[in-house]
Each structure stands twice: as C-alpha cells, then as structure tokens.
C-alpha cells in the first residue's frame, strides 16, 4: 500500500497509565516492594497497537517483548512505538520498535512489533 511509505518515523504513544494490576488478585512482590505483573505492559502495548492498526492487529499483529525492569504498584507507565521500516517481503507490513518507560523515563520493556498496514 503506497500510503505506508509515509509511515516511517511515525511515533505513537499511550499514557501515562497508573499500574495497579494484580494477577488473579495476588500481589507480586520484589525487594523494592509490590510490582505490577508484566501482563500489564503487554496489555498496554496491545492497546496502543490495536488503536493504530485496528482490525489488522487481530489477523497479522506480531509483538515480541523483553521485560527489563518492573513497574512498581502505583507507578505510571508510558508506552511508545515508532515505525522503523517495512517488511522486505511485504511492503504492506510495517515494522515498529516498541518500548515502555516509567514516568522518570526509565526503560522497563523493549520490543519489536509488526502488522499489515493496508486495510
């Protein structure tokens, strides 16, 4: 899709969103106190990407994430993504860098996403 050519460099973001999530009602605790399960990060990344790619995300979305540092309970998360390229084999598929930061700008998770852009 020719419109996709204009996507490179596009940045999208979501947040800040306060992390208050638990898993099945259980608090997860580290030495620094209660933390938000990584499920929350993925959920927020998904929310951002579904908002951008709409229906295409459900049929062609791909997301790989490495979790680097926990989000503390009550801390705020910001999710960001940037279109960096198009797939070599399919110009309609956009490749993105995706990452999560806390409100202080510390990197909590990094990943790559891709999705068919054409509707």
């Amino acid at each position, binding site marked *: 899709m020719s419109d996709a050519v204009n996507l490179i460099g596009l940045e999208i973001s979501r947040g800040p*969103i*306060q992390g*208050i*999530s*638990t*898993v099945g009602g*259980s608090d*997860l*605790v*580290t030495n620094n106190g209660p933390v938000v*399960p*990584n*499920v*929350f990060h*993925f*959920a*927020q*990344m*998904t*929310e951002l990407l*579904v*908002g951008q790619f*709409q*229906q295409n*995300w*459900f*049929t*062609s*979305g*791909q*997301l*790989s*994430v*490495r*979790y680097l540092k926990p989000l503390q309970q009550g801390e705020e998360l910001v999710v960001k993504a940037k279109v960096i390229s198009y797939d070599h084999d399919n110009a309609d598929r956009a490749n993105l860098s995706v990452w999560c930061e806390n409100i202080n700008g510390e990197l909590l998770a990094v990943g790559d996403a891709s999705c068919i852009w054409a509707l």
Partner: protein
Amino acid sequence: MSDANSKALTLIEAHFNTLEIGSSLELDSIFSTDDVREYARENNINWPGHYLDQNGQSLVVPGMIFFRPAVGFGLGEPNPPLARAGFFTRTSRAFRQPIRVNEAVHFRGQITDKYLRRGYYYIVVDWTATGVDGVVAATGREWHTLGWARYPKNHPKGG
C-alpha cells in the same frame, strides 16, 4: 538466603527437575464476557473499545489469550512459591485471527527449553491457540521464571 527463599527454591528446583524439554500439554478454554471484562479492568484497557470484529462482536483482548495457559506445567499448582507463578521475562506472539468472546479455544503448549540463569529457574514454552474452526488463531513463545524466588548473586547458582 532467607528460610522462606530456601524453602521456595527447594520446591521450585524439585518441580524444575520434573519438567522435560519436549513435553507438552493441551487444554480447552472459553473466555467469557466476565473474564475479559475483569482482565480489562485489572489492566486498564478500554474494552470492548477497539476489540470488536466487523460485525460488532466483542473480541478477546489478544494479550489475554496467553494469560491462562501461563499457569500450565505446574505453575498454577496450589503450592505457594509456584502459585506465584514467577513472571514473563520475554514473550513473542503472533496473531492470525481474532478470538471472540465465549468461543472455545484449544491450547497446545510444549516446553522447548529450560535452564537456570542468574539465579532463576526458567522454562520456555511454545503455545498455539486454535479456534473453533480449527484454524490457528495465535502462536506464542513465552520465557517464564518458575516462581519469584532466586538464588542470591553470591550463591554458586546465582550468577
């Protein structure tokens, strides 16, 4: 190392030793409206929001699809250190078709690796979620710790 941590690690290590690379499990699941609504509430997601198919039918939030099978391979046993289930350290997921609320989903998971690294016991599991029509809806590779307990950095197994 605290007694609680030592006890947890003993249980986790025993469980780790029972897990075999290549072993698999299968389970069926249905995501109800209440299930998805609760997940959305816990994770601050606007649901149904964008999570609708072209006919306006509510869809399961994609990240939730792999939440339930994450308790496979003993991670959901009622053994406190394991019931805490540890945490995803890495995940890679691909979505191929939407899963609608109240539709049956068949999961198959297979352990593709397991190891002790930096004091944590890990398993790597490849998951496939298949919809009612027999078509694969999503695939995922999940890197997961067994429990939260870890060997301290100065322990021979902590490095």
